[in-house]
């Protein structure tokens, strides 16, 4: 009896044994930390006497009241960068998937090539490249095409383009994956049924590729709106995004409850955004497309 039951028991336990280490890791270092943000955001006290949990909901009011401008700016910049990623990334993904032919993978590799350079280094490279007296602006000013006081850095467009630059692959890849798997004969069928190239695109290709765009929007909007590397390097002091506020509240000011409240507000805003977005489109589809 026991001999017969043992293998069945082992077989039933197998998946749990396999997932246990990863579960433990994700629980300890992902779920617990997120919960800690919540508890820390409700603490009061100071660095020298220590902080204690006093359910200080006023922290949230203070966080939003003081930093609403940075939070709003982050969402706007993130949204602009995401739209830019669609406008730039979709045509590229479309052309490679439909016209790339034998060189599809080579083109894709060219688009992913910047990933071989560290994210911070790429951004700093842009800064040196676009410096006021640098290679581009210095040369254009030298031959009189630009006025002496022209600048690109320390402006909102510099930040948005920097964000779009760094996160473009997160839009191109999911869109490409969907377009590449698409049966290209459906486009021919549409053309055979007298749809023009525009109608064939808007009525056939675009609707079928939307899951890829949805996944791409999530994978670019979240990291761009929470990023602060681009804003700090390319945007200067007037374009601070909320990530920078969180970083300096934690690491420079050591104002932990305040820092945790801002983090929680950012997380809540993004979560509400994603849930309403996923609700409108169907959670399953968004999750499936994103984790593929």
């Amino acid at each position: 009896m026991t001999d017969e039951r043992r293998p069945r028991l082992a077989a039933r336990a197998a998946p749990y044994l396999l997932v246990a280490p990863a579960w433990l890791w994700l629980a300890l270092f992902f779920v617990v930390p997120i919960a800690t943000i919540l508890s820390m955001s409700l603490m009061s006290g100071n660095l020298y006497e220590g902080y204690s949990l006093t359910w200080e909901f006023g922290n949230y009011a203070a966080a939003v009241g003081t930093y609403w401008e940075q939070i709003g700016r982050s969402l706007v910049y993130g949204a602009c960068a995401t739209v830019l990623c669609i406008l730039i990334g979709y045509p590229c993904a479309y052309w490679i998937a439909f016209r790339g032919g034998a060189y599809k993978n080579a083109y894709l590799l060219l688009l992913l090539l910047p990933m071989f350079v560290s994210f911070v280094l790429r951004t700093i490279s842009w800064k040196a490249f676009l410096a006021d007296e640098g290679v581009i602006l210095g040369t254009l000013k030298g031959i009189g095409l630009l006025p002496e006081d022209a600048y690109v850095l320390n402006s909102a467009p510099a930040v948005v383009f920097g964000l779009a630059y760094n996160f473009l692959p997160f839009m191109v890849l999911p869109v490409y994956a969907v377009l590449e798997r698409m049966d290209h004969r459906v486009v021919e069928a549409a053309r055979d049924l007298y749809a023009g190239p525009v109608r064939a695109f808007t009525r056939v290709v675009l609707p079928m590729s939307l899951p890829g765009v949805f996944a791409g929007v999530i994978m670019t909007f979240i990291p761009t709106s929470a990023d602060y590397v681009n804003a700090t390097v390319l945007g200067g002091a007037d374009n601070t995004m909320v990530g920078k506020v969180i970083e300096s509240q934690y690491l420079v000011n050591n104002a932990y409850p305040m820092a945790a409240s801002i983090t929680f507000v950012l997380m809540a805003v993004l979560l509400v955004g994603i849930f309403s977005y996923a609700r409108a489109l169907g959670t399953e589809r968004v999750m499936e497309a994103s984790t593929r």
Partner: protein
Amino acid sequence: MTATSAPAPAAAPAPAPARRPRRRVDWGKYFTWAVIVWLLSPIAFMIVFSFNDIKGRHNVTWQGFTLHWYADALAYPDLTRALVNSLLIALLTMVFAGLLGGLLGLALGRYTFRGQGATNLVMFSAISAPEVVMGAGLLSMFLTMNIATGFWTIVVSHVMFSVSFVAITVRARVLALDPSLEEAARDLGASAWTTFRLVTLPMLTPALMAGGLIAFVLSIDDYIITTFVSGNTSTFPLWIWGTTRVGTPPQVNVMGTLIFAVGVLLAVVNAVMARRRA
């Protein structure tokens, strides 16, 4: 029907010559190449300016060719130490995330079990959660538990954010496996463990390697989470960040160029090998 369609063939030849000379311009191709140029311009800048013979602190204008920075690549002991730290952390992350993610991916691809939906949800969250939130959470937890941040807290955090990527890569491979191969091994008398060792594992190796490579790249590139959990330990991205105020030395361009070259070389070798196998 015939009345309306009859004139068509007769009318057709007239507009045709006007349309024929118009050659189709492949705008998509020009657009894609323009985007590629945009993507590669700061990289090209980085490479060219690693040969720039600068006198002062700011490496923004061209002042002549030199190989000096390559000869003197290790001039900053702190930069070298940061790079070594980055490589060690990335290797450890690759091993641990490969192991944990491999097991997780195997379970997700092979079995249906209670908690699968929750597992997928946590994985999806860990992939899409903003880095600044994960970094802030980890630091809050380490502070609350009085754990000093440093080398090992970086490793632990990197394993956390890369494990899901490995799991997804391995899961995809497990789902694509042909079950009859394992059944054949069992029919020929192999035990479950022997089947796994000699049949399943070799078939999963490409996915494990790909997943491990993703973990390595994610780890070596990470800036935001690392800032929160690094304490006094420096990594390559952290060190570069520290120099932005005072002027980034050309050695950073040199290191960046070398890492880029190795990465491209590996990608090309991998692509060629994949083509030969196919």
